[in-house]
């Protein structure tokens, strides 16, 4: 997902009776659906896992601005351009909500950003794919934001208060993103043959990477089991992926374009769509840094950070100067 394959540090799931009294009280609060707040006692592994998960989520929002930013200057109309700018601005806001949630766990935002820049922290695999045509902006909103919503709605109920509250804000805004994406696809699909072909091409390229966003099957993963016990992961990767497929295929049917999956068909018995195998080697390659755009994304982030340095410094210097001036005036008065 926006946070993929998060390490919990767990080797196996420990039953309640093996937990220390503090850990046990903590787990019982979670089991009773009582939210954990920043100043509450929490196991160090819970804290560290959440820092990894929330920061990865935040980094994804920020890096996710890049593929879309690519089309701001080339949007087909002024209206589309204004809408896309609003969407990219939202992504920056989402990154900020999430960094703030992570900071309540006792880590600084500068440290989180430094971890991203050093390659220590990850962001979602999906943002390492290029946006080659305008239709890709439609496909991202429709599929990528659609997949994100699928994951984020259950997280509104997660055990950590600041994360759950950030997710509620994000979900409210994300719905606009998905609809604007579908609207772009719909307009293209009702256009001429070339426009419809462009929409189909975007779907062909974004469909499998969107399914990979949910991460590899995790029914047997100890990390997923631990995250589920802590209620910072509510549904399994495969459950979320299946829901996404079931929701999205009828939308493609409406658009009159088809998923690039010859095996895809409705299964009456399961009451779900069956779909073809996912190339997990591709996901692992992207996560390891070998996707089409990994290096370019990091270069762009590093450049933006370095070139913004003087602004951050100047703003601080100005604030210090103003504060000194105010103090002097107060003394004189």
């Amino acid at each position, binding site marked *: 997902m926006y946070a993929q394959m998060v390490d919990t540090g767990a080797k196996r799931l420990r039953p309640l009776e093996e937990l220390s009294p503090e850990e046990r009280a903590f787990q019982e609060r979670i089991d009773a659906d009582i939210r954990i707040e920043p100043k509450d006692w929490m196991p160090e592994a819970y804290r560290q896992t959440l820092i990894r998960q929330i920061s990865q989520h935040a980094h994804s929002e920020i890096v996710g601005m890049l593929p879309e930013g690519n089309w701001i200057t080339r949007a087909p109309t002024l209206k589309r351009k204004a809408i896309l700018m609003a969407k990219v601005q939202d992504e920056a806001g989402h990154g900020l909500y999430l960094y703030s949630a992570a900071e309540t766990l006792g880590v600084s935002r*500068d440290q989180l950003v430094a971890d991203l820049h050093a390659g220590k922290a990850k962001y979602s695999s999906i943002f390492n794919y290029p946006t080659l045509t305008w239709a890709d902006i439609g496909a991202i909103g429709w599929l990528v934001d659609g997949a994100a919503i699928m994951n984020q709605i259950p997280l509104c109920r997660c055990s950590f208060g600041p994360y759950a509250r950030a997710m509620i804000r994000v979900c409210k805004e994300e719905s606009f993103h998905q609809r604007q994406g579908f609207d772009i696809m719909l307009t293209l699909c009702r256009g001429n043959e070339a426009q419809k072909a462009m929409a189909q091409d975007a779907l062909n390229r974004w469909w499998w990477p969107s399914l990979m966003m949910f991460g590899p099957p995790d029914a047997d993963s100890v990390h997923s089991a631990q995250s589920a016990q802590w209620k910072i992961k509510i549904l399994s990767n495969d459950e979320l992926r299946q829901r996404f497929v079931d929701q999205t295929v009828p939308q493609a049917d409406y658009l009159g374009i088809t998923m690039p999956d010859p095996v895809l068909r409705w299964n009456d018995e399961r009451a779900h769509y069956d779909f073809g195998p996912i190339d997990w080697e591709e996901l692992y390659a992207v996560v390891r840094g070998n996707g089409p755009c990994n290096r370019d994304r990091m270069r762009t982030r590093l450049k933006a950070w370095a070139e913004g340095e003087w602004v951050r410094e100047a703003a601080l210097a100005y604030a210090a100067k103003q504060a000194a001036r105010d103090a002097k005036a107060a003394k004189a008065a």
Partner: protein
Amino acid sequence: MDRSEWPLWEIFIRSQHGLAHKHVGSLHAPDAEMAIKNARDVYTRRNEGVSIWVVPSAAITATAPGAKEPLFEPANSKVYRHPTFFPMPDAVKHI
């Protein structure tokens, strides 16, 4: 990190409906003026508010999670503070 980080601010917004300012989140800014500008951009992009307060996070004093019982438990036994504590005869109206 050789430079100091911009301080953290807590943001409170009064919505259109005349309710009290409500905490909506936090952000980093070098000073109060910039905190308000940033809060405008981050927290009121969809007409969420008509007024913004910004407070340095460091200036907030909070109750400790461990103090929940001594602070809030005494209210539990005082149910007579709620109007529903007093059953009213059906024949009595407007009360």
